Structure formats: structure tokens, C-alpha cells
């Protein structure tokens, strides 16, 4: 009888399909690694080889000399870290207040934030560019081609996710808990610091990591506003490996992997909290 063994066969079948699915999604990144480890002359063979004759691990070292990778990395870090801090400073109080009080215009504020999330910067890139050209003609330090412009655009468009997910977290913390602490003599800030914030920590961490990754991966605004190479972040910097006559694919993909691996790990950490924030309160 198959009655006993059917679940085992089913599980084996599902695992088999799972392996194929995992391979499908990983395949481009495996190819990225193979290319990154290939000697340059082996990348120009017709037809292509599945694997190079030897792995050139030194590509991961020479790339730092061949390209201004430090500069790209530094720009990516400056933009992502400062945009994340700005988002945190701005959205934390807004989310806390919105979760705790029913003020006039509360729904309007939530609606405005939600709409911001829907309008990706791509849709507004022409307006954003013209705005920063205009600002730059008065205050050059805040116009196009400055870290400032990149930081505040990234912050503004990631504010929404952060605010929504933190409103959701703060709402789950019972008011009584804060009141109890305040009766015990804690000041308002003390209550926030010792009771509310620690309980909301998973939400705050999710918001921080998500904002960091979104700013790290942002492309169209950086392509438009960062005109000089010394403020190019990684996303724009790696495309400069695509020259007019030849492409240094091995360096392009060593740089890409350096950009991708850390954020994949960060993403896996926050995986289980993500969907709720991205779908803005629509799925429990």
C-alpha cells in the first residue's frame, strides 16, 4: 500500500521542486560569481564556457586598483547611513504620535504617507531634478551633485515604509504599560526610552534595515543627481565598467557581488517582518 509512504514521496517531490526553484533564483548570481572569478581573456570565447579553466581569485583584489571602488563604496555608505538616520529621526516621533493619539488630520497624514510610498522617485525624477537645479542655483551646497540632495530624496521616499511599520508596532504596545511606568515615577521620555522603544525594537530594526537597503540599491535618482564620479554610489559606479569599446565584466561583477552580499544577509534577517510594512496595513 502506498498509504504510509505517500507523505514521504510527496515531501521528496516537493524538495526536488524546491531545489529547482532555488537554483532558478540563484542562477544569475552564481553566474555573477563565476564571471567575477574568471580571467579576462576567458570571457571572450564563442560559445561561452560554463566554467573558466582556473579561478582568478585575485580579481577581488585587483578590482580595488582598477576602479574607484572605495569611492563608490564610501558614497553608498554615506548616502545610505545618513538617509536611514534621517528617516529614523523623522518617522519615529511621527509614528509614535500617530499610533497613540487621534489628532485632527491623522487619517490625512496616513494617506499622504501611503501615497508617498506608492510614488516611487522614478515617477517624479524630472520634477526632482528641476527642483534641485533650482535650489542649487541659490545654494550650491544643497543642489544637484551633492550628497545632501541624494540623502534627502532617499529619506523622503523611504519615510513611508518606516512610518507605517512603526505605527503598527507602537499600536500593539498597550497604553497601560506606559501608564504604569509613568505612575512609578518615570518621566515621559523615560517611559519612551525604557518601555516603549525596547518593545518596538523589531519594528525599528526592520525599518532601519529596509531603508538602508532601499537607499543602497537606489539607482535612478543617483543616476540623475550624482553627476560627478566622486559621489557616484555603487549602483551607478558599476555601470561605468561598461565602456564604449570594451566591458570589464569580471570587475563589474566583483563590484556587484561586494554590493549584493551584505544586503542579502540583512534582508534575510528582517524577512518575516517585511510583508506587513510593504503592503501598508492591508494584510494582517
Amino acid at each position: 500500500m502506498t498509504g504510509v509512504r505517500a507523505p514521504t514521496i510527496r515531501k521528496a517531490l516537493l524538495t526536488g521542486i524546491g531545489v529547482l526553484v532555488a537554483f532558478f533564483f540563484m542562477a544569475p548570481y552564481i553566474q555573477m560569481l563565476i564571471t567575477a572569478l574568471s580571467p579576462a581573456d576567458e570571457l571572450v570565447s564563442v560559445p561561452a564556457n560554463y566554467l573558466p579553466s582556473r579561478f582568478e581569485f585575485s580579481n577581488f583584489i585587483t578590482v580595488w586598483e582598477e576602479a574607484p571602488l572605495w569611492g563608490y563604496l564610501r558614497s553608498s555608505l554615506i548616502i545610505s547611513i545618513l538617509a536611514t538616520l534621517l528617516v529614523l529621526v523623522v518617522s519615529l516621533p511621527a509614528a509614535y504620535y500617530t499610533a497613540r493619539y487621534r489628532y485632527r488630520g491623522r487619517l490625512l497624514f496616513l494617506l499622504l504617507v501611503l501615497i508617498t510610498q506608492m510614488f516611487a522617485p522614478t515617477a517624479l525624477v524630472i520634477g526632482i531634478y528641476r527642483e534641485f537645479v533650482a535650489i542649487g542655483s541659490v545654494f550650491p551646497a544643497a543642489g544637484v551633485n551633492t550628497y545632501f540632495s541624494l540623502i534627502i530624496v532617499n529619506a523622503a521616499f523611504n519615510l513611508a515604509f518606516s512610518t507605517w511599520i512603526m505605527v503598527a508596532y507602537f499600536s500593539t504596545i498597550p497604553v497601560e504599560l506606559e501608564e504604569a511606568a509613568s505612575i512609578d515615577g518615570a518621566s515621559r521620555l523615560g517611559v519612551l526610552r525604557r518601555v516603549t522603544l525596547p518593545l518596538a525594537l523589531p519594528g525599528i530594526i526592520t525599518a532601519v534595515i529596509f531603508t538602508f537597503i532601499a537607499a543602497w540599491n537606489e539607482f535612478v535618482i543617483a543616476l540623475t543627481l550624482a553627476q560627478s564620479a566622486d559621489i557616484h554610489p555603487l549602483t551607478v559606479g558599476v555601470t561605468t565598467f561598461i565602456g564604449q569599446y570594451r566591458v570589464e565584466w569580471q570587475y563589474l561583477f566583483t563590484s556587484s557581488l561586494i554590493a549584493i552580499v551584505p544586503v542579502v544577509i540583512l534582508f534575510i534577517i528582517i524577512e518575516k517582518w517585511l510583508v506587513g510594512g510593504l503592503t501598508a496595513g492591508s494584510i494582517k
Partner: protein
Amino acid sequence: MSQARVAPVDKPPAAAPPRRRRLPDLGPLPWIGPALLLIFAVVLWPTFEMARTSVLEISRSGLAKGFIGFENFERLLADPGFMGILTRTLAWVVIVVSVTILVSLALASLLNAAFPGRRLVRWALIVPWAASVVMTATIWRWMLDGFYGIINRILLDLGLLSGPINDWLGNPSSAFIWLMFVAIFVSLPFTTYVLLAGLQSIPKDIYEAGEVDGATGWHSYVSLTLPLLRPALLVAAIINMINVFNSFPIIWAMTRGGPGSLTDTTTTYMYKLAFQLLDVGQSAAMAVVNFGVILLFVLLYLRFVDWRRA
């Protein structure tokens, strides 16, 4: 205290314990003011600037030369390639979103079942979601290279190609199919996760009750799962429509909308108009049209989703 607290239990203000206050009550402004300021400065101002630019005559160097009404829009409509771009954009959104939803339904069911190694499959699915889209698109461009690409090698070994050289991205039709493929590839993880969350919120006993009524397997999927998944499906579909419509890096990294404008969508064409063809006025007109389309999607979303619950 002028504002009533949000649940759990609303007490009448008089019953609230007296509170020592160090700061005067300015209402919500100190709390939400900075967020509003950021939204006004970086979202609302550019929206206004974009709309204003669309009715101005703008020189090639970017200077405004005065109001010209709807002339930018008329020039956009008269653009010989425009109808093709419009049709392609429609195909792009409809095909990418529907295929993504169908495949995600299958993937979500797979990940909702228990089997050894499921966690690793979930992690593999995260990679294209976390990785920079422009970098993902660039590796596909390399794999699709007409001379040195691995895809040609694989298809050659499978006997599906007659020769080793095949310029997938140089030919507009095959290029557009591959662009859609990559757009689906990067859209699948998020969609699958949303649908998986939907599946996990369906109580198991519903299926037991269904079995009593004779609903099993495929029948139970169609009559029970899909209707219960409706909210998640709607959310996934609308968010996808917005993302796919806005998608810029895939096309930019793989074909730049070329050859010519033959793989452009309205989003990449808007960019090209402003920053390659230096026609900012017409680009702003295109941007206003795009903005209208997204606004429509947003209204659909607000209509279907209970966002007020937060």
C-alpha cells in the same frame, strides 16, 4: 488632554490621571512636522514643478522661455514613436503582472507546504529581492550577450539554436521578451511573499469543513483558497502594477530602450526625453501622463484596501 487616545480602552478625558507637563502642548506638529516637511520638500514640490514644466517652453539648456499651454502634450502625441511606446507599455504591465501573479501563486503554494529545505528555498527567493535591480539586470544582459553569453551556450547544447551567435538584445522583439522575463524574475519574490502571507492567514479548519463537502485538491483550491486569497491577490496585483509601470533600471541596464525607442516604455522614454534628447518640456508632459496612470493605480489600491485600520 485634548486628544483621545487610540484603543485599547478609551477613557473619558476627565478620568485620565493628572500629568506633569514640562512642555506646552503644541498638538501633533512637533511630532509629525518634520515628516510633513520632508514630504512637502521632496514629493509635493517636485510634483508641482513637474506639472508646471509640462506647460512651459523649455530650452535645450533647461531654461524656461514662457507658458505654451498644452503644446508639449501635442508634440508628445505627434511623436511618431509614441503610439508604439504606449502599446508596449500596456503589454509590459499586463503581461509582466499577470505572469508574475500566476507563477507566484504556484510558488506561494509550494512554500506554504512543509518539506525539508523549505527555509533555504525561501532564502534563495530573497536574493533577487534584496539585490540591486540594476545589477541583476546587468548580469542578465551579460548572460544574454550575443557572442559570449551563457544563454546561447545552453540553448546550443540543448539543440535549440543553429549557431553560437544570437543577438537577443539587438533585436527589438526578442529584446522585449527578455526584458519582460527579467521584470518577472525580479517581481516574483515580493509577490510570492505577499501571497504566502495571505495563504498562511487562511485557517486550516476551513479545508477540513470543505473535505466534508467533498472539496479536495484542485477543487478545494479553486472554491476555497482563491476566494479567500482575494485581498492578498488584489494588493499584490496593484503594487506590482505600480512597480512594473515605474520600472526603469531593467530596461536602462539591458537595452537603454533601444534599438531606437523600440524597447522603451513611457517611463524610460520620459527619462530619455529629458536627459538624452534634452527636451525637458516634452519629458515633463510624458511625466504628467505617467503620474496620472500611477494615481489611477493608487486610487484603485485605496479603494480595495482597508488602510484606515492602522
